[in-house]
């Protein structure tokens, strides 16, 4: 269930065929704005954001650089506080959600601790939540296998390529099996093939575990490939221009990419993005 | 004019009033000398300066000069300014010291840097060990007499003309103090004297300059003795640190005057008997020998005699 009550997109865009229309709302953003006070004056990073994300949805934020994708994700994660408006995550404040360890966050950079092996890196969130050694090992094993790093668990991050590091950081976020997965351009550093592979893996995990995923990307095809809903944003001030609900099935495979429906959705997103660019 | 540089043993103070007086009153100039006086300091060894050529004449104490001579640096005494020692050990009566027999186990403040030889000789004579064990505890006294005020030492080394005054200034009264003058204990050694390099005495021109210098210096000391207040004021003028006080320097001048050679041929003459007494004291200490054998040619009257004949 999505609602954008923005000046640009005024109408309720709940598409009737949406299977999520009577789902529980996981994230509810109302009239949210965020202004950074900088030396050069205030920066309107987010302005009048209205957005509902249903449980189990896979939502992608797409838009040009600086449009506030990261900022919005950080507000959800309680890494940033809005300056106006309200937001609830799983019915509580973002802070409570964070304290309840509701979500896992994957940063754009891998952000692994260089003094810990890959395995010990994945153990960090588990150690912090106080899980038993046995449970830690089980989880780490499972998810390192999932991202294809089972043979590298004793290596240090700097002994791995950028893409492998990024996969390790995803495994780390998955280990605590959070209900909500927040991912900020997690595959930006990967080559296209690995990226495709990771996309498929992510889709599988999401489909199996019924997590809610909020995903920031620059890539149109990635957004199409993954999402149930695509949120197109535009900068200065950061706002939502359009929310597109994907007509494609939840579970997609790579073959889908050569279909008409895929290209049509990609074209729609590109058009929405270009529109904004033209104004600029 | 011929240039001569004099290296003092310590900072500018009335202890050296005679040289400054001679300079200020023009006595050196009268002799055709252009004299530079270099003040010393806590870490300046005058003999080192002399060896390096930084000075022509130095003011030093005889124990240290003889020890240096034995090290292979041939210093020669050409004139003795003080014939009495101003050194003493100043003790607190409250610490239970009334005779040297009470020193055992006590903490005594001593100056080092070549000034420790008389003390070591004395302790050796008394039979005290100074390097731990059953003897006395020795503390390397810093620049001042603080240890006695802070109860860190039972006795401190003082000069009659300087530190003793500071002890009194600091609030201790003579009644509270027990003094042991090296003179009275029979361990006195000769203090301020003038020393040059032996090889320079082979040069008659140098000898003549030294003689002129000695003559003017003697004159300066006599003037200072007569005019203690004026002499103190000269010292204040020459003191670059600006830390000396008038009253302190006047007192020092008065005390110093008492140490000046008075018997025999007066200021500047080294009495061989005094010399021998110093040597004997230094040789007498078995445990910490300052010198190991009777020095040869450590003093010369050539310059003094020449000065008298000028």
């Amino acid at each position, binding site marked *: 269930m999505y609602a954008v009550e923005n000046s640009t997109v005024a109408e309720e865009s709940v598409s009737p065929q949406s299977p999520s229309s009577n789902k529980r709302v996981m994230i509810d953003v109302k009239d949210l704005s965020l202004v950074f006070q900088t030396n050069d004056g205030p920066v309107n990073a987010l302005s009048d954001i209205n957005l509902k994300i249903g449980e189990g949805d896979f939502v992608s934020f797409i838009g040009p650089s600086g449009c506030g994708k990261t900022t919005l994700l950080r507000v959800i994660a309680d890494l940033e506080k809005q300056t106006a408006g309200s937001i609830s995550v799983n019915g509580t404040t973002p802070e409570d959600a964070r304290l309840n360890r509701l979500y896992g966050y994957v940063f754009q950079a891998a952000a692994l601790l260089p003094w810990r092996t890959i395995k010990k890196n994945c153990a960090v969130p588990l150690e912090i939540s106080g899980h038993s050694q046995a449970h830690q090992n089980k989880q780490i094993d499972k998810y390192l296998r999932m991202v294809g790093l089972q043979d590298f668990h004793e290596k240090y991050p700097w002994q791995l390529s950028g893409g492998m590091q990024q996969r390790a950081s995803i495994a780390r976020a998955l280990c605590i099996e959070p209900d909500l997965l927040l991912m900020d351009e997690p595959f930006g550093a990967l080559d296209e093939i690995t990226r495709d592979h990771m996309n498929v893996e992510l889709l599988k995990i999401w489909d199996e575990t019924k997590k809610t995923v909020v995903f920031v990307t620059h890539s149109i095809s990635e957004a199409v490939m993954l999402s149930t809903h695509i949120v197109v944003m535009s900068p200065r001030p950061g706002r939502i221009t359009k929310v597109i609900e994907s007509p494609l099935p939840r579970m997609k495979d790579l073959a889908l990419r050569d279909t008409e429906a895929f290209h049509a959705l990609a074209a729609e997103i590109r058009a929405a993005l270009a529109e904004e660019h033209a104004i600029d | 004019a011929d240039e001569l540089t004099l290296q003092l043993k310590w*900072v500018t103070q009335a202890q050296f009033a005679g040289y400054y007086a001679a300079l200020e009153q023009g006595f050196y100039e009268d002799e055709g000398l252009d004299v530079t006086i270099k003040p*010393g300091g806590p870490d300046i060894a005058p003999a080192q*300066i002399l060896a*390096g*050529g930084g000075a022509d004449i130095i003011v030093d104490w005889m124990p240290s000069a003889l020890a240096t001579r034995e090290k292979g640096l041939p210093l020669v005494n050409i004139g003795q300014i003080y014939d009495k020692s101003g050194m003493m050990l100043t003790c607190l009566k409250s610490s239970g010291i009334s005779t040297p027999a009470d020193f055992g186990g006590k903490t005594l403040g001593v100056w080092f840097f070549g000034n420790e030889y008389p003390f070591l000789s004395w302790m050796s004579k008394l039979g005290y060990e100074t390097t731990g064990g059953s003897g006395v505890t020795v503390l390397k006294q810093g620049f001042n007499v603080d240890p006695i005020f802070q109860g860190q030492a039972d006795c401190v080394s003082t000069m009659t003309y300087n530190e003793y005054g500071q002890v009194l200034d600091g*609030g201790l009264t003579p009644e509270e103090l027990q003094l042991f003058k090296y003179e009275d204990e029979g361990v006195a050694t000769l203090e301020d004297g003038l020393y040059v390099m032996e090889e320079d005495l082979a040069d008659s021109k140098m000898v003549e300059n030294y003689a002129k210098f000695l003559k003017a210096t003697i004159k300066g000391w006599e003037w200072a003795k007569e005019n203690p207040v004026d002499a103190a004021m000269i010292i204040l003028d020459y003191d670059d*640190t600006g830390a000396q006080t008038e009253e302190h320097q006047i007192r020092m001048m008065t005390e110093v005057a008492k140490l000046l050679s008075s018997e025999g041929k007066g200021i500047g003459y080294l009495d061989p008997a005094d010399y021998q007494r110093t040597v004997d004291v230094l040789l007498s200490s078995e445990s910490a020998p300052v010198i190991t054998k009777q020095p040869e040619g450590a003093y010369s009257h050539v310059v003094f005699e020449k000065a008298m004949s000028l």
Partner: protein
Amino acid sequence: MKESIFDKKWFAIVVFIIAITALWYAAALWMNGNQLVKTYERKNQEWTYSTIIAEAYQVKRPMLPPPHQVFAQWYKTVFDTKVTSKRSLVYHTMVTLQSTMLGFVLGTVLGVAIAIGIVHNRTMEMSFMPWVIASQTIPILAIAPIIVVVLGAINLTGVVPKAIISMYLSFFPVTIGMVKGLRSSDRMHLELMQTYNASNSQTFWMLRWYSAQPFLFASLKVAIAAALVGAIVAELPTGAQGGLGSRLLSGSYYGQTVQIWAALFMAALLGLSLVTVVSLFEKILLRRRGVSV
């Protein structure tokens, strides 16, 4: 979010100054008081707490002079004494400043020169670098007197020996910082220069020199403080020739604790101003390279 007063810099500084002053007074009372009590007891005189409190702040040879005494002495010797007089703290500060600056300049030049050599020449790096570090394990401050005396013996007197000690202390941080700085150039930038077939000197002046600047200034701040320490220590053995070091010495020699503290205060003030001047230069330079500060 509004800043609370507790986040203000000046507030913290003021609170700290007040707290330290209060602590200082308390400590002075305790230390000097104890001494007074000991004196009274030695003299078998009567004493009361009130007399002790009254006298503790006016002792002639205090263990710890109270702040106002130090400040009064400082004020008197700075403002109420002619600057040309040897009793003026300003005069002595200038004496120290002279050798500090000379030593600092020499040390900086030497330090930068060594760093350039080390960065551009492998042999120099391998032979020299270990000894640059080892050189600082020689307690130069301890042998400063010897150096001053030995140089004095060969008639190098006045400001030069002091400056040499300052130089020895200040070249080290400069060398270390500059080596690090000259090497801190982004690898990609260095390769860029390589693709342009830039000469060593072009690479130096266009790239390395700039990437070294932040490191250089950080080092200069350390170096100038070290130069000051060097100058002051070098003034101790030649105790009678002016400068803050000789003020410390003569204060100590004549038991004038207040004079020591005033000189110390002045030394710290001087050190702080020197560092501030370097920071100022840094700001100007950084602004010229377009960094907003």
